[in-house]
Every structure is written in C-alpha cells, then in structure tokens.
C-alpha cells in the first residue's frame, strides 16, 4: 500500500484518500479493482472525483506523457481508474457488466502503457 501523503500534486490533495484503492499501475489492475470493489466504494470515488475531474484533466492536458513528474503520473493513474469505473456507475449500477461474460474469458493481453510517450506501434 502506498503512503497516502503527498502522492498527488498539492492542488488535488482532497483526492489522496482514494489513492490506496485506485491509484494503480496497469489497465488490468484497474479492472480487477473495479470488479472486486463494492458499489458503495465505486460510487464514493465517482462522486468525489468527478467534482475535480475537469480541473485535473485541464491540468494534465498541459503535460506530456513520457515526462510526467511522479505526482502528476499518480494523478493520471487515479483518473484512469475513474475512466475504468465510469461504466459501472453510468451504465450498470453495479461493479460488473450486467449479464456479461466473465472478464477472465476475454482478458486484456496488450494494454496501452499508462505513462509512456506514444506514437510508435508496438507488436
């Protein structure tokens, strides 16, 4: 578990409380966190984070992948968890897809890297 102090840029300190559960280092880890979380946890995270999300994304839009300071990288990863849990709130009102195939039958085998600069297609 990460320390919960000063891992985000100072202007986003109100979101630090969510970092232990939602600041995660891969798309696969974020999906695993979503499908094992309670809907109460997901909704708390959604309700608070969406209040700050436009500001967070405006901040991130001034920065480049591949050269993010650590705290900004953590903020981006927290926002990527918001992207992952968005459909749980906005589509399903439960963590998993309703009447969906189990995620483990159709896993993500190639993910877009979280923080690396983009532009070259990898095999």
């Amino acid at each position, binding site marked *: 578990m990460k320390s919960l102090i000063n891992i985000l840029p100072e202007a986003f300190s109100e979101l630090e409380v969510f970092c232990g559960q939602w600041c995660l280092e891969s798309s696969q880890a974020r999906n695993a966190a979503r499908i094992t979380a309670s809907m109460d946890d997901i909704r708390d995270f959604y309700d608070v984070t*969406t209040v700050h999300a436009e500001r967070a994304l405006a901040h991130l839009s001034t920065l480049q992948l591949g050269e993010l300071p650590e705290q900004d990288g953590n903020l981006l990863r927290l926002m990527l968890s918001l*992207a992952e849990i968005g459909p749980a709130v906005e589509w399903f009102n439960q963590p998993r897809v309703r009447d*969906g*195939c189990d995620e483990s039958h159709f*896993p993500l085998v190639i993910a*877009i890297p979280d923080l690396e600069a983009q532009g070259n297609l990898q095999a």
Partner: protein
Amino acid sequence: MSEPITALNLTAKYPELNHDPVDTDMYWKEELFLQEKDKIFSRAWHCLGRVEELTEVGSFFKRQIPTFNLSVIVVRSTDNEIKAFMNACSHRGNDVELADCGKRKAFTCKFHAWSYNLDGRLIGVPDEAGFPELDKPDIGLRQFKCSLWEGFIFVNLSSEPELSLKEYMGQQGADLEGYPFHLGTSKFQFSGVIDTNWKFLVDSFCETYHIPILHRRTINSTMAGPDNIHGRTVDIRLKGDHRTTSVWGNRKYQPKTVQGLAFKHSPGVAITSAGDDSIELPKGLNETRSPNWSIDVCVFFPGLVCVIGAGMYFTHQMWPVSAGKTHWEMTGYLRPATNAAERFGQEHTMAELRDAVLEDANTLERMQRNVSTGLVDKFYFHDHELSLRYQHFTVKKHLEDS
C-alpha cells in the same frame, strides 16, 4: 438535423437473396466446420498485424493461427520486404523463435542451433559434416505468401493462392483505401476463447436490431435511442464475399459525466462520426453520407471484422477451432495521445468497448448451446439482418463449390 430512419427494403436490392428462413446446420455440425476449414479458411487471406509494428530490418512478431494450430513469424527482411515463415525448424520441427516479438539478425533454434537468416534461408548447421547429403538452399523455413493492404499484413497459407490480396479485398477494400489506418498507433488487445461458432461472433457486430434490447443499458443510447427505437441500420452494402453495415449514431445524445469528459479529452473519438472529424472519409465509409452515422462494420470474409469510426478503429479476428469454439481477438487502434489528459479518453474508450462486447458474449454461448441440440433448425433474419443472411448465403456457396 436527424434523417428518417432507413426503410425496410435492403434485402430486395439483392435478387440472389430472399426472405426465407435459413437452416442452422452450418452453425454447429462438426463435419460442416471441417469443410469450412478446408474450402474457406485454408484458401483465404488472413490479417496478422500492421506494418507499423515492424519498424526496422530484423523487427519481427510471432502470431498463432489457432484454426490450424500454426505459429507464424512475420519479419521485416533484409530487402525491407515483409515476409512470413512457419515457426518450425527444418531439422526436426521445433519452434525456431520463442519470443513474441523483438529484433533479430537470425532465427536460431534452441534445440540444436540450426539458424536461418531474415529471408528464411538456412545459414548455420552445427557439425554440418554429420549431414553428408544436406542441400541447404532447399531446406529453409517454410515461407507463406505475404502481402500488404493499407498497412495491414496478410498471409495466405496455400502455396498458390487463387486470388491476389488486391483481388481478395475487392471492391470493399478499394472503397476503404485512403482511411488513415496508419494513425492508429496506440494499440490494445483483448483475446480469449468463446464457446460459440465463429459466424455467430461475426454476426453480433453486423446487426443492430439487438442493440435496443441486449445493449439497453449501454450503447443503445448512442447507436439507436428514441429516434430509432428498433435499432435500424443506416445502410448495408454487399460487395463480393464481403459486406459493410453502417451503424446509426444518435446525434442528440447527451453524454453522462465521465463519458463527456472522455469525449472532450480523447485523441479524436466521437459518438457520431459524421462531420465530427477533420479527416475526409473514403467512399466506402458511411457511403450514403448520413448525418446519423456512428461507425461502419466492414467484414472481410470469412473472419476479419474492421469497425471504423472517427478517431479510432478496431478489428475483430475470429479464428474458429471447432464448430462450437472460436478464438476471438479484438484489437483497438487509437490515435496517440497528444497530451497526458488524452490518455484518460483512451482508457475510457477501451473500458466501454470491452463492457459492451462482454454483453454480447454470454448470449452467443447460449445460442450455441441451444442450436447444437439440433432442435433449433431454422433462423429468421430481419431485413436489417441482411449481413447475417449474406454470410449464410456466402458460406453455403463456398461449401457447394467443389
């Protein structure tokens, strides 16, 4: 402005088709699957990847073709040409390459160290004197015919393909040329084995009649919605063995909070693609130029489905392994993020796409279980399920050919 939804007259445009129910044998009978494998899949061109994945001489990737239990190496060879080889050593058949991708000067078998250059030629045999009759130029790696279309790398497993790749891609391929496929360099992929016939998987992306029902919580609001309550398509076009379904887009849709943020901060993804993107569409995309268009679903018969919209495209590759089992790969190609916030839009695109297709997969497995009893002997296709009727027609035509 919305246009009226598309009328019910699509099937009638094609005199070789009718509105009769179809028999269901080809979706579950193992003997028919073996014929499909022989008469369709062993003759077809198969897409294995993109040229952008092979940037330098010696860059390679390895792909499995589950239908034939075959491992293939695709490499940028010394003459800068893309070549494809069977991943099997001529000595005694072991894999010559174990890594999934990388860069090599030569491929060397980890069994007895026979090695092959980037043209597949045998260049190294330890203690060669022990093989007094060895004819090295004749026993390189088995090479497959390999060709490019719009940066996609295709192979054909037959020694003498009946059609060139250009002929195979036909009118549908020609009509898509010019789409900026090469810009989709941020790639993700899902892969798994689903207990369903390969044709059911293809079908699930080719009809939108199910969207208001099966996807009522998810993509119904963007791809059907109150102006199109039965999920009519925009248009369906049959071209040779291939076909395209143009899917409706609800331009009045008001995105929810996270969706709205994702559309704002994404490298070009939009709900309705018509007019929202700066690129000029090739003739074959949204061919009727409807303002209520979201994506085109272009099937290259038999098992490649290209889903193309604004700012992104993705492909489904169906590799049947038996009548009731399919290895399914879904690959997304997004434009690169131009700043850190656009990584958020990419992640959301991936998450919504995955969740929507997980809704389809359960249903496809249930259909397979029922049809495999032999007791569901007829299917009834809606006029806007024309693409499914045409797949049935096309498979039947190939199986009846000697």
